[in-house]
């Protein structure tokens, strides 16, 4: 199984997954900070400004032409929420030169380019980020935020989290806030950039046919360092509060039902593997209770599933239903969780779910992006889980563990987005 090797060079941790199975090499710089309302907008804009101009390639167009020259190396900058951390990622994937007729040093060139994006961005004669780039990227960021609304399932999920986690950092969208975009200036962006280089936990992930010595040499060109931060992903119990119910309308055909549950069990807990199995059996797979009952038995929905956000301690349920079936759907979903808590499921279904969870884990590890995500969870949670140990831990889960996991899950907020007609 693919294990990661962590090599420290001049203070920078390089996480290497060495494997000959890909035709490309993948590099990811993961830059971690706390998720706060104050910095989210600036960091998300910063990601886009950094990817648009470097000292050697001072415009988007020059960057794109250079990447095309590197056999279409793909390059992205994005921001994500992992628990209450805000992760800025710079990703580059380039062909492994051994599959090309030409002899191009793609590994070296890709890596120097990635370093340049982070450490040597374009500054104008005043030593500031380009005003033109900032203006254009502000506009793109606004459009990206607005487009969340156009995908109604995504929009409903965002609204649920905003309402459910109102006074917590988790309610901050990784893109930041629309109202804050215009407040960002080249000065505040520069402050945030400098702060990021000095304070954030920066790590380099490399996946591909790469030896430890090559990875070490690669790391030596960087001057940024990794700074282990205290993990901040404490799951919160619901404290016996009455669940909130929120109904909103939009001009849509299908009702989007999203339920937010809380659990105290997070990635670093001993019960974590049991919660993965519990979520799988509740709504993670086609054999799950939600799929079998909401979709197959009642024919009420095309999709009905749950997701476990293990870095925050949430279980999120979503289903697309006819608006008139709202009460019935909510009752069925609640009943499925009650059944989980009371152990109304067979040992066989637990075994089946364990196999499925393991399968999912190993399949994720088959893609370069997937394996980086898997191992990065350990960093974000401050608890190391190697792939092979992880698989063993899932094997060891019992029905009783699943019941214990389910016992921690409580409904917090029920959000429903429905058509205007249906609301009348």
């Amino acid at each position, binding site marked *: 199984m693919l294990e990661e090797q962590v090599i420290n060079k001049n203070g920078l941790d390089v996480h290497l997954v060495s494997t000959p*199975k890909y*035709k490309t090499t993948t590099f990811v710089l993961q830059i971690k900070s706390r998720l706060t309302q104050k910095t989210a907008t600036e960091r998300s804009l910063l990601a886009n400004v950094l990817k648009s101009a470097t000292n050697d390639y001072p415009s988007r167009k020059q960057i794109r032409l250079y990447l095309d020259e*590197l056999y279409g190396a793909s390059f992205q900058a994005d921001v994500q929420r992992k628990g209450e951390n805000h992760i800025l990622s710079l990703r580059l994937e380039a062909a492994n030169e051994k599959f090309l007729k030409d002899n191009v040093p793609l590994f070296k060139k890709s890596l120097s380019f990635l370093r340049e994006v982070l450490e040597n961005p374009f500054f104008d004669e005043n030593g500031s980020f380009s005003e033109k780039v900032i203006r254009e990227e502000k506009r793109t960021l606004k*459009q990206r935020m607005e487009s969340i609304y156009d995908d109604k399932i995504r929009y409903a999920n965002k609204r649920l989290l905003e309402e459910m986690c109102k006074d917590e950092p988790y309610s901050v969208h990784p893109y930041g806030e629309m109202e804050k975009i215009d407040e960002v200036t080249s000065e505040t962006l520069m402050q945030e950039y400098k702060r990021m280089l000095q304070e954030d936990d920066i790590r380099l992930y490399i996946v591909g046919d790469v030896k430890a010595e090559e990875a070490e040499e690669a790391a030596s060109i960087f001057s940024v360092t990794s700074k282990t931060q205290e993990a901040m992903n404490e799951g919160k119990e619901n404290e016996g509060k009455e669940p909130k119910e929120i109904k909103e309308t939009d001009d849509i055909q299908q009702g989007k039902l999203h339920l937010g549950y809380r659990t105290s069990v997070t990635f670093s807990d001993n019960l974590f593997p049991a919660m993965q199995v519990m979520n799988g059996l509740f709504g993670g797979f086609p054999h799950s209770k939600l799929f079998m009952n909401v979709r197959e038995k009642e024919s009420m929905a095309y999709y009905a599933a749950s997701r476990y956000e293990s870095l925050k301690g949430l279980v999120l349920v979503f289903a*697309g239903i006819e608006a008139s079936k709202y009460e019935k759907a909510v009752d069925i979903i609640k009943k499925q969780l009650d059944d989980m808590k009371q152990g109304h499921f067979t040992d066989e279904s637990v075994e089946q779910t364990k196999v*499925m969870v393991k399968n999912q884990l190993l399949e994720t590890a088959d893609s370069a992006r997937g394996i980086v995500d898997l191992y990065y969870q350990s960093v974000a949670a401050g608890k190391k889980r190697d792939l092979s140990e992880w698989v063993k831990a899932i094997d060891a889960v019992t029905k009783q563990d699943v019941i214990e996991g389910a016992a921690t899950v409580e409904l917090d907020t029920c959000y429903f987005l429905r058509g205007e007609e249906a609301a009348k």
Partner: protein
Amino acid sequence: MTNKKTFDQLQETIYNERLDNGLTVYVLPKPGFHKTFAVFSTNYGSIDNHFVPIGKKEAVMVPDGIAHFLEHKMFEDEQGDVFQTFGEQGASANAFTSFTKTAYLFSSTQDTDKNLETLLDFVQHPYFTDETVEKEKGIIEQEITMYEDNPDWQLFFNLLGSMYHKHPVKIDIAGSADSIYEITKEDLYECYETFYHPSNMVLFVAGDVQTDQIIELVRNNQNNKSFKEPEEIERILDDEPKEVKNDKSVAKMSVNTPKCMVGYKVNASKLEGKELLKYEFSMQLMLDALFGPGSDAYETLYEDGLIDDSFSTEFTAERSFSFLAVGGDTKEPDKLEQRIIQTIENARDKGLSKDQLERVRKKKIGNFLKQLNSLEFVANQYTSFAFHNIHLFEAIPVLEEITIDEINQLLHTHFEESTRSVSQIIQKQAN
């Protein structure tokens, strides 16, 4: 007999065999991968709605959405749900229906043999009752309503609806809430018998597997089943005019950002094999040179705030239809429409340069290598190409052959104004 083909530069070896009953099997060993991915596909999709059923003389017209409905119903048999069986064997299973193909697939990190048997057996065992057919209608109706709320899907199908007069590519793959209620179990059996004959199907297995063992397993499995003699399938298509039906379609939806897509209807290609692959790649390279992120057009459209990352191009060449489309999210759909058309007109006047071609060619080679990391991509793409006698792994030499003259020739033979149609989604209400 099993054929073996090795591609040295790519370091890949692929095996294939056509079994006695007509089924084509491909095996691609991929050492180092945890999972095995298998896809069992029939050369039958949503456009195949008018045909002569196997063993009959008269053509029939079936309700819209039936290929997709059939795909849903295949997962159930006398014992219940096949998802359960896959689940017990640690596999995740799925299926999809496109215009010309229906594919059933699983991936698993254990019990490959059992899962492969399950895949073959459930797809080759139709079981429909009035009751199970009725039950599925509610689920599919919700699937259709989900897509009705999806503006990108609507943009795309409105474009096809404007482009085509009669061709069934204009019909939503899942059909409509009305059409699916007409479907009966007899319809499903008729489609099944006609299109799911092994001679119309391809099985592709990729993973850390032993080729001989896989082929042996499939052969034994197939020898234990009996099938009718294969017949040539007779599909009926009305003549489709060269010109588009409407030049524009505008729909209002609840969106913040409008959308615009410019499409050109292309004569269905009669090419096969390597020639078809070369044609497809030439068109893709041309579109990338014109509108890709490294093009002048992309940069100025971006600077002018007319496009964002969603801006993209696509070229489709399938049996009996072909089209290309350019577009994405935009604040000003009319302006973007004009600029896309202008870019094409300019290129037709001046032609593309050798440098532009070299740049996008390199990019395409690198992207192709990237795609080969995905077993799903390789298996699905290899299968689609196999229906046209193309070997996917020949891609790089074919890409290297394409000349700038060939691309400029294509610029002239495509993009007539009468073949152009535009689709827009605009805001329903001001926000």
